[in-house]
């Protein structure tokens, strides 16, 4: 289903040696982990092969962020045991607030690395919809998993971190929507992180068959301020012909983790993937969100908001690649940087040869709240076809003194005026999140982070 463009390398890259890092786990470790979690037998080889690749592959090179000194490979423990929840009532209160009351029947909750609660309505079950943890998925839906798990979406051998992820997957979810099934209510996945020694190697796989439609929303929620370890997260989304997937996420991971999060979409003919991502981590984060518009007439809308604070370093790549004819893409990113936080926004619209009448539009806006913060918005258009349209807008700026004057001239205090401007600045993405509770959570997280 996918084709890939050769990655452009800068001169000299190929000769650079990567520093060998010793990996925390051995082949024996991943094989016995595989047996312990009672996943499908083929997963043991999958992990072992990936681990071998992780040992030799190079690190990714996110544009404009130097990550050579970041720790992506060491962590206190690969897996921790956590409690399960008999009902949603038992969830910690921060987590409960994210769920829209009792009507949320379709939900998977993971407690650190432990699948802790799963519910799917009888109605959806009877239509063949699947929502389950990743281990069960490999057992019960082995064919589907073997077909899609890190094959056509994110490949195992893209670089050290994808290989490491494949070897160490210790959680995640599988969502499957059969042909012609239209799911009205959002499916929700909640990753609760409350053990500071836990590492998250979560894999999410969403497959929406032809003419289906689904809204998927996930939350990453650290309930403590500081943590150790890794969050190496991969999501793959397949929207088959004429399918529609809305993918909402709010990431709130604690300071101290190293976060690598890779969310990727592949579209069939006339399919559509919409992303609405609230990237609110306090950890140093490399986030990569790529959609391949493979099918003719397919489209993607990629919206993200970011708030950086403290001395946090973050790099966000949003990329849409046009392969099919008449494909349409819109990337919108808004970020607020406070204190001495750093963020790089790479927005990439790539149009391959033959993607006639493709339309690639992107907009990146960054609002700097302090003199010490650093923000960089890089709009990149790589176009190999003549008959296309493309556009980009990017800006990095401070709060407009005239807007402040206007608001304050109505009696609104400086702090409140700034708050209104920041929320307003982020609203185009926040308002797109499909679940009320999650929208509220994102608003509250923003409030907390910018205060």
């Amino acid at each position, binding site marked *: 289903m996918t084709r890939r463009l050769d990655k452009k390398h800068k001169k000299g890259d190929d000769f650079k040696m990567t520093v060998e890092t010793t990996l925390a786990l051995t082949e024996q470790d991943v094989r016995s982990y595989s047996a312990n979690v009672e996943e499908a037998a083929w997963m043991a080889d999958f992990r072992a092969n990936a681990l071998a690749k992780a040992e030799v592959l190079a690190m990714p090179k996110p544009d404009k962020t130097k990550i050579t000194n970041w720790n992506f490979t060491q962590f206190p423990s690969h897996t921790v045991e956590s409690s399960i929840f008999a009902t949603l009532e038992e969830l910690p209160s921060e987590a409960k607030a994210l769920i829209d009351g009792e009507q949320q029947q379709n939900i998977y909750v993971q407690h650190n690395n432990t699948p802790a609660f799963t519910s799917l309505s009888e109605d959806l079950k009877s239509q063949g919809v699947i929502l389950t943890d990743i281990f069960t998925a490999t057992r019960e839906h082995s064919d589907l998993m073997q077909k899609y798990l890190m094959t056509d979406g994110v490949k195992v051998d893209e670089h050290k971190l994808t290989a490491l992820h494949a070897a160490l997957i210790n959680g995640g979810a599988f969502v499957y929507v059969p042909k012609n099934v239209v799911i009205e209510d959002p499916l929700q996945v909640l990753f609760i992180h409350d053990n500071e020694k836990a590492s998250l190697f979560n894999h999410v796989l969403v497959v929406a068959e032809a003419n289906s439609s689904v809204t998927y929303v996930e939350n990453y929620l650290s309930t403590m301020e500081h943590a150790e370890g890794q969050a190496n997260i991969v999501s793959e989304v397949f929207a088959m012909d004429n399918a529609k997937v809305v993918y909402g996420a709010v990431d709130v991971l604690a300071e101290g983790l190293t976060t690598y999060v890779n969310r990727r979409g592949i579209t069939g003919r006339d399919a559509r993937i919409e992303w609405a991502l609230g990237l609110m981590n306090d950890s140093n984060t490399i986030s990569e969100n790529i959609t391949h518009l493979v099918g003719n007439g397919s489209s993607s809308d990629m919206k993200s908001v970011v708030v950086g604070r403290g001395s946090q370093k973050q790099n966000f790549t949003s990329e849409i690649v046009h392969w099919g004819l008449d494909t349409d893409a819109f990337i919108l990113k808004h970020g607020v940087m406070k204190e001495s936080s750093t963020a790089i926004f790479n927005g990439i619209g790539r149009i391959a040869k033959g993607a006639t009448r493709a339309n690639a539009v992107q907009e990146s806006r960054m609002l700097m709240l302090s003199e010490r913060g650093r923000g960089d918005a890089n709009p990149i258009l790589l176009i190999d076809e003549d008959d296309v349209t493309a556009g980009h807008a990017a800006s990095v700026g401070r709060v407009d003194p005239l807007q402040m004057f206007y608001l304050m001239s*109505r*009696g609104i205090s400086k702090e409140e005026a700034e708050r209104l401007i920041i929320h307003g600045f982020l609203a185009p993405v926040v308002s797109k999140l499909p679940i009320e509770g999650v929208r509220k959570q994102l608003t509250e997280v923003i409030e907390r982070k910018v205060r």
Partner: protein
Amino acid sequence: MATLEIKDLHVEIDGKEILKGVTLTINTNEIHAIMGPNGTGKSTLASAIMGHPKYEVTSGSVTIDGEDVLEMEVDERAKAGLFLAMQYPSEITGVTNADFLRSGINARREEGDEISLMKFIRELDSKMEFLEMDEDMATRYLNEGFSGGEKKRNEILQLMMLKPKFAILDEIDSGLDIDALKVVSNGINEMRGEGFGCLIITHYQRLLNYIEPDHVHVMMQGKVVKSGGPELAAKLESQGYDWIKEELGIDDETVGQEA
């Protein structure tokens, strides 16, 4: 009764003096109009009183009942009773008109004593109806994509909701067709009364056909050069400004810069 007193106000922008000693006293229950050709410092006066970041007051004073306005932050000036209807209001994405207004009202009230949502909506609805504004203007983002006329009505809506002691209206009539002009004038006349004073800045007489001022002042070269009653506005309408320039021996009435 409250009094807004401007004494010998000098104001600079980027090091260039625009106001060269303006003196004016406005009481509540009075409507003053400042007229004058373009570039004579009228808008600078309005912005400087409110505390616009670009304007620097170099000498003189502005007080409300003796309280020093120039010492106050912009929001404190608003809470002291000042309101400026701006010529070019800012557009603010993501902040709805209603949320903005409610923040403005609540800023004047104690914490815990915020206006109830129902009361707020009732009041907003009735004022919007009065100003013949579309209902969706409440939920649209502040001034974003508003036409020139909609922005002006929105300024008057804020005036009516916030009920200041003193309003300064900076060319509220520019770019309005005659129907909109009537609506806006109705809004201002509705505010007229015991607790309200107003300074209207305009260079057209036609607004004053709908809002009769008690006092009329003419600005030239960064100063008030002539004051009178409503008859002064009528004379300006029929005879223009040249007779004043002649009378005062003024050759170029501007301060040398669009202001």
